[in-house]
């Protein structure tokens, strides 16, 4: 199995633990990832709202390079990248006006995009291409007794619910169960994490993130696991300030790829738990899970 890999800016910066855990896991799964050479911004949320055509052109350039390189469908682990690249695909195909503008832009730099690729999320690839049987075969250290709240965030299932349900996604639940973890019932799995509001309107954004954490604690979760760098950042990064700092939640927030790495028995350097702000090691030790 071979795919084009689009890391996006987060996976090289604040979300580097995602990339650092994803690449070894995919190697273990025998899935080849070829990073798209000279990739650029996905179009991002902010640009999309100020100049749609330019944002689509940015996204399309990444897809055009991937198509030229013939490395297969594009894997985009960041939910925002995943959504923006999918949105670009969708608009190019459905809206001829935008399609013409974007193609003209690509032509100006000597490129074109025929639209032959699919944009996939790694969770989708793990479940549907690799399959849970193959994952199970690699589990060396089951996450026995570890109670996990699966948090999907909004962007991987909305508006394009391509591989899971828009209101009640279950792919990560099934994956975690195969890894041996105990999935707690978590009704807020697609509720907003606060998004970029944690940076722009902190009094609005941070309580949204806290709501998710408090519910996870209420459900007896040892940790929250996410599929998105911004969700991880919001949930992990603001825990000290709940209720003005009086209530310390201390809930580790990991990427699903980190839990896969632990269960596969990969070395600590490939699981990179040290990147998290709230330490996960204590919880794992309590459940007698060695990393």
């Amino acid at each position, binding site marked *: 199995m071979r795919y084009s890999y689009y890391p996006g800016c987060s996976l090289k910066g604040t979300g580097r633990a995602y990339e650092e855990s994803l690449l070894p896991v995919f190697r273990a799964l025998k899935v080849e990832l070829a990073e798209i050479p000279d990739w650029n911004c996905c179009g991002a949320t902010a640009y999309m709202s100020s100049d749609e055509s330019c944002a689509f052109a940015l996204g399309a350039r990444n897809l055009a390079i991937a198509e030229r390189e013939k490395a297969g469908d594009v894997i985009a682990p960041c939910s925002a990248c995943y959504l923006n690249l999918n949105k670009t695909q969708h608009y190019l195909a459905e809206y001829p006006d935008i399609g013409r503008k974007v193609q003209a832009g690509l032509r100006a730099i000597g490129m074109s995009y025929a639209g032959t690729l699919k944009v996939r999320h790694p969770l989708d690839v793990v479940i549907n291409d690799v399959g849970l049987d193959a994952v199970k075969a690699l589990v060396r250290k089951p996450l026995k007794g570890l109670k996990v709240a699966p948090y999907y965030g909004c962007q991987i299932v909305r508006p394009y619910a391509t591989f899971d*349900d828009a*209101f*009640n996604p279950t792919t990560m639940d099934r994956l975690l169960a195969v890894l041996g973890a105990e999935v707690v*019932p978590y*009704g*807020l799995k697609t509720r907003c994490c606060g998004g970029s509001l944690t940076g722009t309107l902190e009094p609005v954004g941070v309580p949204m993130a806290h709501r998710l954490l408090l*519910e996870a604690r*209420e459900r007896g979760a040892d940790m929250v696991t996410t599929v998105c760098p911004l969700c991880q950042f919001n949930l992990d990064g603001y825990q000290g300030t709940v209720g003005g700092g009086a209530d310390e939640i201390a809930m580790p927030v990991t990427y699903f790829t980190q839990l896969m790495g632990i269960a596969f028995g990969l070395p600590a350097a490939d699981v990179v738990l040290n990147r998290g702000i709230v330490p996960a090691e204590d919880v794992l030790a309590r459940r007698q899970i060695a990393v």
Partner: protein
Amino acid sequence: MESKTNGGARIGVYVCHCGSNIAAQVDVKAVAEYASALPGVVLSKDYKYMCSDPGQEMIKQDIKDHRLDRVVVASCSPLLHEHTFRTATSDGGLNPYLFHMVNIREHDSWVHEDRAAATEKAKDLVRAAVRRVALHTALETRRVPIHPDVLIVGGGIAGIHAALTVAKAGKKVYLVEKDATIGGHMARFDKTFPTLDCAACILTPKMSEVRAHPNITLWTLSDVVKVDGSVGNFQVTVRRRPRYVVEDLCVGCLECIKACVFKEAKFPDEFNLGLGKRKPVYMPFPQAVPQVVLIDPNTCIEFKTGKCKKTCAAACDRNAIDFKQAEQVETVTVGTIMLSTGFQVFDAVRDPRYRYKQIPEVYTALEIERMVTASGPTAGEIVMKDGRHPKRVAIIHCVGSRDERTNRYCSRVCCMYSLKLAHLIKEHSGAEVYNFYIDMRTPGKGYEEFYDRLLGEGVHFIRGRVAEVTDVAETPEEKGRIVVRAEDTLAGVVRRVPVDMVVLSVGLEPRADSAEVRRLFNISCATGGFFLERHPKLAPVNTATDGIFLAGCCQGPKDIPDTVAQAGAAAAEALMLVMKGHVEIEPNTAHVVESDCSGCKSCIGLCPYTAISFDEEKKKAVINEALCKGCGTCVAACPSGSIVQNLFTDGEIFEEIEGVLNG
């Protein structure tokens, strides 16, 4: 070439206004005037309503006064009035097949916006008809005797009511039911709206009557697997699945159930939607008809291992239990068929917002229906899975109805059954009941009054489609409860209502096997998959296939009064055919011109009605006109052009095409 005289025909042309249906979009006077100059046309008129008595009278009189020998009427679809005008032609003294109809309504005025172009099109169509009708020849309809027996498929209230109606008229009925008992969905209901009659009290006597009536043959656990023939003479093959209990021997004493090696009932009971338990040998429900137990081979130890002590068989002093019972196949001949195959409720799992099967205390209305029934799994008690009684219950309307993502249509019964359940839940448990609705739809006799009554009983009504059902508490009051979130569109606020139990008012859908049933009986469906009636207003229980009728929810969602009315209507339609004793068959059949037939047999395999055989002596194909349905397949396929179809001869078709094209 168009002849100047059109073969010496004397044709009368009539152009109908259809009130303004045609006249608004087609200049009917211009069309009539144009037609008057066509070859062979001796008179041409326009008239407000050709189908009215004066319109028909005009045709009859003109035939006599003007010695017409052909008639063309340009009006609506032949489906609607071909028969009317053929009769008028015949009453005027001409053979009815010397008439031809032109559809300038459905094919013209209703579908075009440009009046001038629509008028030209009407002229083209009339010209084609005039040229075609000149070649028409006198034909005779055939009469075939109709078999008096009636087949009814589906033993819910529709099938039961129709079966009794036909049987009481002295005719024989075969009632085929897929389940082990008749009664359908109605048997599962506690009470019926708006009168709160006990469903069992009004239904079960009719069920017993079906069983007892000498004119009704009841086959349960049975499916129709093959249908051949046509109106008057259908051959139907029915597969009867084994019950493993001999129906004629069992008296329903239930000793076998007591004796079963399973001391406790431990398998989900289908009749109670899994809320109760049954043993492998069981009676579907206390008033089941027939009163005969059955054995479920999927849970019975004898079927799984062959090593059961078979205490049930030993306990039966009539030796009714037969583990070796095999499937039986019956073939019957009937003249007419009625389908009353019912519906299935919307699977609430398909709308994950409402968390059915995720949050334990979320139920479907049908499950609650079983719960409030005195003979149900909880003996009428509204009880949660942990044994507590709910203090607050939410009822969510329109689940799987009026929703672009699932079904767009209104399921018609949910508002009323939700009101009924609200009343019953309140009565049985004293809980506060919250109805979340989009619109209250209560159009029926006594329905609005029932809604009024519920308002007076203190049931809460919140107008708004529920956005979310969640077990995530935001306040201490919500803790440990289920929260229903909706925009209250009357108050203009978003509400979060904490409750203990949620009831989903699921909509009605076509049964999962409805496509198969349609193919079997050769009928069509409307959008959504419900069976299609011949005409929504004037032939609501007929189908496009002669002799096959519809009743109940297989045709569309409806309540019990409407279902029973429809079942009665379908029974009357079937009886009308039976009482008449014969059906008239269109003379549009095909025949082989023997001298031209090369005996290649191409046509034989193609005929969908197996109407063509081969005369080995003459080496020619022979068409049995009694079986021919006039589909034209063989005519088109014959390499030597030796098959001719009445009303569709090559000459007639070519003249019509030439007429359309050569203005």
